[in-house]
């Protein structure tokens, strides 16, 4: 008798457990759906008032109640893209070094240091950016670049203007350091998944380390590497605090990368405290949140899609 009873209760336990887990899974879906719907509904007055032009308009004038997302969408995308351009070569170097070149005793400490970078709170990056990086840029880096590259034809306009230290370029620089660990760790992991026999065959044919990297490792891992980059991009898009400190917070699009700008996340963080319930401004901020949600969602979905083979393993 006892064994039978135990089996029955065990079956019941199984069912309860399965139900609980199912509920937990469905809860996440409901939460996500509710968030999107809530943001959309709360932002609806802004979409109604400005129509599709809300996305492209560069107005942000709280006094006249004219709001548009153009400047902050531009800032969000430009800083994230610049950050990726700076972070990817560095991350590639780190991953390459750790998997192919580093002596075994160095791999673990360097790898751990990279992962620790990911654990630094973003407010720390923000303060470091504002009190250390921005003055250094303003006094040493930007004047030189403005004087030397700012005069060049074609690309010169990207590097003109007063050296504030803050601006799109500084924000992108801080973001690059923040997303570096995510990209580097993903790259290292996928580089290590290349079957040794492939690499050994290439070495056996007389290939150099670089040729093995270029001809074997990168083609084998290409899709996962892009997925890892998208992961970093997703983080760069939504980063708030660190960017708010160093981006210069101006609702204008400046041609120069040293000019001040804005991102969706930092604009929302800055303006939220002074927005009254029921005002068009609050609706516009929530509509911005909705747009950011869509942007991040698209990026993350792409990364999941590209990483699908690796996630299955």
């Amino acid at each position, binding site marked *: 008798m006892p064994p039978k009873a135990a089996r029955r209760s065990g079956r019941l336990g199984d069912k309860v457990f399965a139900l609980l887990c199912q509920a937990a899974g469905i809860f996440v879906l409901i939460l996500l759906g509710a968030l999107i719907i809530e943001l959309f509904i709360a932002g609806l007055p802004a979409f109604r008032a400005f129509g599709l032009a809300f996305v492209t308009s560069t*107005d*942000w*004038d*709280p*006094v*006249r109640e004219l709001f548009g997302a153009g400047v902050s969408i531009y800032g969000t995308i430009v800083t994230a893209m610049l950050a990726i351009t700076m972070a990817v070569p560095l991350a590639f170097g780190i991953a390459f070094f750790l998997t192919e070149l580093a002596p075994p005793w160095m791999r673990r400490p360097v790898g751990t240091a990279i992962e620790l970078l990911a654990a630094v709170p973003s407010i720390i990056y923000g303060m470091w950016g*504002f*009190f250390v990086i*921005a*003055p250094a840029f*303003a006094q040493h880096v930007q004047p030189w670049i403005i004087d030397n590259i700012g005069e060049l034809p074609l690309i010169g306009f990207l590097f003109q203007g*007063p*050296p*504030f*230290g*803050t*601006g799109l370029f500084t924000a992108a620089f801080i973001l690059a350091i923040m997303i570096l660990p995510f990209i580097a760790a993903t790259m290292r992991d996928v580089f290590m998944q290349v079957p040794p026999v492939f690499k050994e065959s290439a070495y056996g044919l007389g290939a150099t380390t670089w040729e093995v990297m270029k001809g074997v490792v990168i083609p084998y891992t290409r899709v996962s590497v892009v997925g890892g980059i998208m992961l970093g991009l997703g983080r760069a898009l939504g980063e708030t605090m660190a960017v*708010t*400190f160093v981006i*210069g*917070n*101006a*609702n204008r699009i400046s041609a120069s990368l040293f000019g*001040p700008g804005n991102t969706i996340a930092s604009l929302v963080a*800055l*303006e*939220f*405290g*002074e*927005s*009254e*319930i029921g005002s068009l401004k609050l609706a516009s901020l929530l509509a911005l949140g909705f747009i950011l949600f869509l942007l991040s969602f698209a990026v993350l979905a792409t990364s999941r899609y590209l990483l699908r083979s690796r996630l299955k393993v």
Partner: protein
Amino acid sequence: MDRRSFLLGASAALTLPALGAQAQAAQITGAGATFPNPVYQKWAEAARAAIGIQVNYQSVGSGAGINQIRNRTVDFGATDAPLRAEQLTEGNLLQFPTVMGSLVAIVNIPGIQDDALRLTGPILADIFLGKITRWNDAQITAINPGLALPNLAIAPAYRADGSGTTFVWTSYLAAVSQEWKDRVGTGTSVRFPAGTGARGNEGVAGTVRNVRGAIGYVENAYAMTNRLAATQLRNKAGNFIKADHKAFMSAAAAADWSVPGFAANVIDQAGPESWPIVAPTFILIPTNPTDAARSASVRRFFDWCFANGSQLATDLEYIPLPESVHNAVRAAWRQSFSA
């Protein structure tokens, strides 16, 4: 003792002292403006010891404070930008001022000391409009004959977060420049035509410190404690004034407080000694409170602050209201809460 009665006993032991403490110290909550936060915290600390009212004030921003008092989630709201009379009626709110603050312009120009540079309102407006772009502009050198102003780009820095400070600053610029009024306007956040934004007083101060040629605006208390180089300003009477306590008090005395909601305009007053950028900050309380006892505690707290808090406010570089204004506020309370 079995387990259940033990649990009951334990929970009773936990809740009873808490109830007792509530009966002793009346608790009130408030939320809103960040600008008067230091003095409200100081007053709360002192009033708790003196009259046993415990005030929990959260400095979440004027807009958020207005939202919270409209929803009645706090006992009082605080705002730097006064509400209009019809907004007060609609929200069943009473508005009164508590204390005043002043703004100064701070600069980072090599060789220029604190209180040395002279500026006027129209020049400030043109700087923040992006029309005057060099420190050796003829308009600036004309009123600063003794100073060697360098050929340096002017980098205006402003508050990027919505703030009462920006409201006061833009109110001043709009008062002295028609172009500012038409092109930019007045608000807790506006579209600044030039310069860079930073977060909070400390962000603006940090930007001014970092960037050669920068100019920004902060509360006087902040400029004093951080030893930033402030400028003189020309007031309405045409005199160049240094930012000091006497100039602030003179402005407060010159203002007309007999307007609805005490929304007095202290900006650009005509007194010969008046500092031009002085502004009061306000408290909002419901005229139909759900909890009469808490509402009375709020009034008792501010009544105590009016009677005893002026020195504390002065120590923190705020400007106490004239005694006549204190009495006018008390009269308004009596009128609204006579029952």
